[in-house]
């Protein structure tokens, strides 16, 4: 009897087991539903970005056209930045329902703008989305337990073990084949919907194979855990209870314990401090001598130090200098704030090491560019764009050039 032949026989046996097949079909259906919902969400986000980009361009033109000078133009003109969903975002929405993926900025102090939140519905964020990553992290283990937990104990309880030993000779090979058939079934149920979705979106081969490997590892890890219990000489009920306990511990209790531990290890920085500091600096400038703002500004921007001095109570060059000073003074705190978020994220990696559901979510979100790192990267892109924007205006403001609308044709364009 060849190995392939035995595999086919086991597969045929498995297919006749109606409840297992129903479970796998249900799993495939849920995965497919999640892919479908994720896909429609991504389409909605893309359409929204397109729509807002057009609105933003019109609005900016109107603002620039009615501005009397460059200072006013920089004040009135907003620029849209956006973080488009990747070709794998449909599978893992991640942070995209709590962290903004569109933000409008202007050449004023950035720390007063970059922390704006989007108008997400908090009752919806609380639950999170029904995405593929959720199905893989939470539901797949339950389905895997369902189709594998009594692989051995059911035979024992039915008194068929001696028969199996007699008929197959090498009973280990038989168990291996049975496990293999079940693992293959689970993999098909998980991967087919993913591949179909990827085909629909045109996901790159690299992302798709990465996601497939994550799914494969997830299935294998759970299969290994389940087999450790399935081969114990316990009753089916005890095995099922223990496995449910393992699931409960890894999917809920460890992540929550990890959260409590991380909150204590890395308390983080209250963002309100950054906002307060930035605003104090910007507003104090109005009551300070002009030089108190301009000297430190010229220290970091020496190229403008030799331009005409400010003599009036109000001048745009002074105005934009103190905006920048606000950011400079808050820079250290702001950096520390982001560093704390990154450190918390790194600590989460340790929780992922002991909790497959956390690991799966993190891995898929990281690949899909929807994790904490990705939102920090978007933050960095906004900062870089803002820098180019204010530096674009400086020559006009500091050389006190008369307003020319044509000069604004070369305004920096945001590149996502």
């Amino acid at each position, binding site marked *: 009897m060849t190995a392939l032949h035995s595999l086919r026989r086991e597969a045929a046996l498995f297919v006749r087991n109606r409840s297992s097949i129903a479970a796998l079909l249900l799993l495939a259906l849920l995965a497919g539903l999640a892919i479908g919902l994720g896909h*429609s*969400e991504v389409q909605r986000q893309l359409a*929204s970005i397109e729509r*807002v980009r057009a*609105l*933003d361009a019109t*609005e900016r033109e109107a603002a620039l056209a009615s501005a009397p000078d460059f200072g006013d133009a920089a004040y009135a003109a907003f620029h849209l930045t956006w973080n488009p969903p990747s070709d794998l975002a449909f599978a893992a929405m991640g*942070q995209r329902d*709590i962290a903004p993926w569109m*933000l*409008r900025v202007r050449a004023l102090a950035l720390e007063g703008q970059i922390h*704006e*939140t*989007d*108008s997400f*519905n*908090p*009752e919806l*964020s*609380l*639950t*999170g*989305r*029904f995405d593929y990553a959720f199905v893989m992290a939470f*539901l797949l283990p*339950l389905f895997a337990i*369902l189709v594998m937990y009594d692989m051995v104990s059911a035979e024992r309880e039915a008194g068929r073990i001696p028969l199996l030993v007699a008929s197959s000779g090498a009973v280990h090979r038989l168990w291996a084949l049975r496990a293999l058939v079940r693992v293959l079934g689970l993999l098909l149920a998980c991967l087919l919907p993913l591949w179909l979705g990827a085909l629909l979106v045109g996901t790159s081969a690299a992302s798709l194979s990465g996601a497939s490997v994550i799914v494969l590892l997830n299935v294998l890890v759970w299969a290994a855990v389940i087999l450790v219990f399935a081969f114990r000489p316990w*009753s*089916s*009920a005890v095995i*099922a*209870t*223990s496995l*449910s*306990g393992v699931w*409960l511990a890894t999917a*809920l*209790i460890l*992540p*929550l314990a990890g*959260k*409590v531990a*991380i909150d204590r290890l890395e308390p983080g920085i*209250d963002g*309100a401090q950054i*906002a*307060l500091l930035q*605003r104090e600096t910007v*507003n104090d400038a*109005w*009551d300070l001598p002009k030089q108190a703002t301009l000297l430190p500004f010229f220290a970091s921007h020496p190229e403008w130090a030799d331009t005409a001095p400010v003599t*009036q*109570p*109000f001048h745009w060059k002074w105005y934009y200098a103190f905006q920048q000073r606000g950011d400079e003074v808050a820079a250290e705190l702001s950096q520390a704030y982001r560093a704390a*978020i990154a450190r*918390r*994220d790194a600590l*989460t990696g340790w929780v992922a090491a002991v909790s497959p559901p956390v690991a799966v979510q993190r891995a898929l979100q990281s690949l899909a560019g929807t994790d*904490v790192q990705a*939102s920090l990267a978007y933050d960095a892109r906004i900062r870089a764009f803002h820098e180019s924007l204010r530096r674009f205006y400086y020559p006009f403001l500091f050389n006190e050039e008369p307003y020319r609308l044509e000069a604004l044709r070369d305004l920096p364009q945001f590149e996502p």
Partner: protein
Amino acid sequence: MKQTLRIAAGEWTHLLRTRLAVLTLGLLFTLVAIAAWNSAEQLRAEAAERLHYQQQADEAYRAQPDRHPHRMVHYGHYVFRTPTPLAVIDPGVDAFTGRSIFLEGHRRNTATFSEARETSVLTRFGTVSPAFTLQVLVPLLMILIGFSSVARERERGILLQLLAQGTRGRALLQGKALALAGVAALALLPLVLSALWLGVQTPAESAPLLVLLGGHALYLAFWVGVIVAVSALASQARTALIVLIGLWALLTVLLPRLATDVAVVARPAPNQAEIDIRLQEELRRVGDSHNIEDPGFRSFQQQVLEQYGVASIEELPVNYRGLVSLQGEAESSAVMDRLSAEQHVLQREQAGIVRLFALVSPYIAARHLSMSSAGTDLRNHQQFLDAAEAHRFALIQGLNTLHAQELDFADDSARSRDPLAEQRTRISSEFWATLQQFDFAGAAAAERVRTALPLLLALLAWLVLSALLLRHAAGKVEAL
């Protein structure tokens, strides 16, 4: 009755003899207790921190030097949301909403700095709170403890023996249910204790606390009935376990997520950027109140001149620039209020769709009952935003009134060019000391109870359903 008690006592003796059951019981009690402790401690720290920031912001505002009042309009003010007392039991959406708002002239800002963005992906796995443990973890642990209560007797052949000896099927299931209800009561104990503590400290919260407790009791009672009924109906213990875990996953894990997606698809919401652009368009029609010549204020100027019976704005007894600021803020606030009200209604409709899922998932009923009565739901957050906006509007218009009454029009017009005029437009810092305290106490207890009542009824209906299932199962057992 005697039979029922005897069976319940027997079940407890069995549980205490089983290592796995004792382990699960211990875990259950520890979890609820840790959640209650952690949540109380975290909330205390947070409340202290926000109070500190609020005081810091208040002091900073009051300490501002002599200034042009419009400078104060742009200086603005910060308000912080302090947690409601019952957030100890259910923090609800608190982790997902911004904790502070910057109040300034011309703009209605959103709340910034939400905890969810600052913490890792783990926030999405649940909250360490009594509500989450009771709604999600405790039913699962009760399943692990109770799935075999009747099925075990059947597998060992004891069930027929018991029936032959005259035990009534109904009494048997009632006894098993009573035993499991004891487990549920044990899990509820920390909540009852903290509710008593909170009730004594804040008597006004008694009614919502009662609803909160009652809702969770009904919810756990639902699970007691379902677990025992399924255990009695299943031919094997493992079948009972699989069915119950499947049901739990469906009701508490799968349906809530589906509800979210249904709400988003049924009522898609625009992004803030889109709303802001729409707002900016409408505000341009209102006009720029920094510029008194703006065409948007031409008819207003006419109206003011007629009202005071003078020919030019220079002859007005008040500073016309301040009047324009008042008018501009009033008009732009009206536009902003309208747009944000639209947004609030849309979000409440989304939340309403999710709440409808209470009809297919008792977990959703319990969760929303809990958030509503604790005052940590979407509605409460919106009320916080509206209260902050009312505070902002009063603050800004107070400053604009000073702008109109305390400043000389000629000085005010010349202040950007003339340093002496600029000096004269600075008014005394004593005005800043009149800053009003921002108090947001959250929705009134009666209103919260009213929102939660339909959900309490839904949970009652779920309990009736579970009792009917139990009766049906008792009939089946008796027919053996």
